[in-house]
């Protein structure tokens, strides 16, 4: 017997989404970015079902925000791992979309020198959208 073998633990999970996550993904499929509103009026993008600070349920319904925004945090990936969204060097970016009060984490496809806190970016949509976080292919520079 080999002292060692490789093994892939593999399963295609099927996750039900509920109205908030499902609403957000429905919006992405349709090319819109939607956020949820906490009771004190903060807009969360991506939307959570609850106020992350208090646990209180958010208000009913989602509100649309812009597909442009500002980088609030970043990290530059010099060598992507095989499952990362991009196969060349990229940045993970926290992006506060215009109209939102929280930041969305996704890949930013931009040259290293263009990656900084405060940089303006926009969503690059995926070619085929199916209601998934990867309907946002990544962010790119707003003026590219």
């Amino acid at each position: 017997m080999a002292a060692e073998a490789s093994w892939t633990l593999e399963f295609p999970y099927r996750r039900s989404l509920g109205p908030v996550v499902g609403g957000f993904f429905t919006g992405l499929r349709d090319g819109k970015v939607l956020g949820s509103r906490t009771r004190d009026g903060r807009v969360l993008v991506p939307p959570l079902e609850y106020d992350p600070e208090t646990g209180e349920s958010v208000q009913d319904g989602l509100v649309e925000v812009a597909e442009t925004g500002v980088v609030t945090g970043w990290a530059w990936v010099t060598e992507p791992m095989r499952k990362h969204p991009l196969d060349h060097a990229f940045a993970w970016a926290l992006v506060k979309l215009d109209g939102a009060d929280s930041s969305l984490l996704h890949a930013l496809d931009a040259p290293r020198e263009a990656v900084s806190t405060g940089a303006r970016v926009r969503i690059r949509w995926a070619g085929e959208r199916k209601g998934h976080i990867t309907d946002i292919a990544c962010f790119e520079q707003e003026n590219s």
Partner: protein
Amino acid sequence: MSVKTAVVGVGQTHHKKVRDDLSMAGLLREAAIRALEDAEMEWKDIDAVVIGKAPDPFEGVMMPEVYLADALGCAGKPIMRVHTAGSVGGSTAVVATHLVQSGVRERVLTIGFEKQSEGDTTWGLGGGRSGSVGAGGYFAPHMRAYIDRANAPDYIGPAVAVKDRLNALKNPYAHLKLPDITIEQVMDSPYVWEPVRRLESCPTSDGAAAMVLASEKVADASSKPVAWVHATAVRSELGQFPGRDPVDPQGGRDCAADVYGHAGITDPINDVDVLECYVPFSWYEPMWLENLGFAAEGEGWKLIESEETNFGGKLPTNVSGGVLSSNPIGASGMLRFLEAALQVRGMAGEHQVEGAKTAVGHAYGGAAQFFAMWVVRTEKP
């Protein structure tokens, strides 16, 4: 120096094969918010959260307390996660109780959950390999050994299956609703893990169960009846060793002796008004009746034959419908504890056992090697 502790609120989801209307956080929150409402509390009132669930690959989320922390109002608060296999719902409630009894926290929210529909439990139990026999395949030889040893009639298992499914009709949250089920129908259903038939097996469910445990000071101020925790106990034994008796495990016997001793129960069949025990396969009811001291060895099935574990019998057992009617694994044990609490609060609605003052909740897991129990009463200890 132990702080008297009570269940001051409970909540559970409507358990279903697929709760396709909710996210995972949404599932837990449905149960948790119901428990908070029952306790007349808000998220801010909770000091700590203890959650429990079965193996992480069931949903494919590792250590889900990390993702769920703020969904359960825990930004700036403590949250911990227990995992003791099938007994986890019970063990989790025990940890939450200890947090209050120790004086460390005053109001603790505890939640057990499973969203089995996200993945495949048989796959998960087999570590993703071919040939997984699931829990039923594992336990079937033990049930065969019981039937053989106790010389039990073949209709006893089916009778339990029918009883629990008819009980479930009185529980609005139960998953399986089989109003026309009969013993003949159960006996005609195909074997899955012979001697276990399909209709003698638990369903796979999505669901969550939540309770708020609170100190005497808080409980005394409650406007509703509370369930006082008189005793808790857990026991673990090795899953495999020479001389182990998986049909009547010593761990289960010791666990029962421990809670009875602390709750002053000397004659279980007469001292206990309602039993909620973990019966995922029908034959486990007579097995646990013996293991938990409600019947002598080899006599458990006679309580079923004489319908003493039915509604209106001497020891109504799993009047909620039990695990045979709803099985969100990580919540299943907690549901036994929760239903026991509901009974002594007199708030079980249609499945209320009239005058229930003392109830026992029980859960088991692993290779029938992990046990958790509690005794709750209407009266303060």
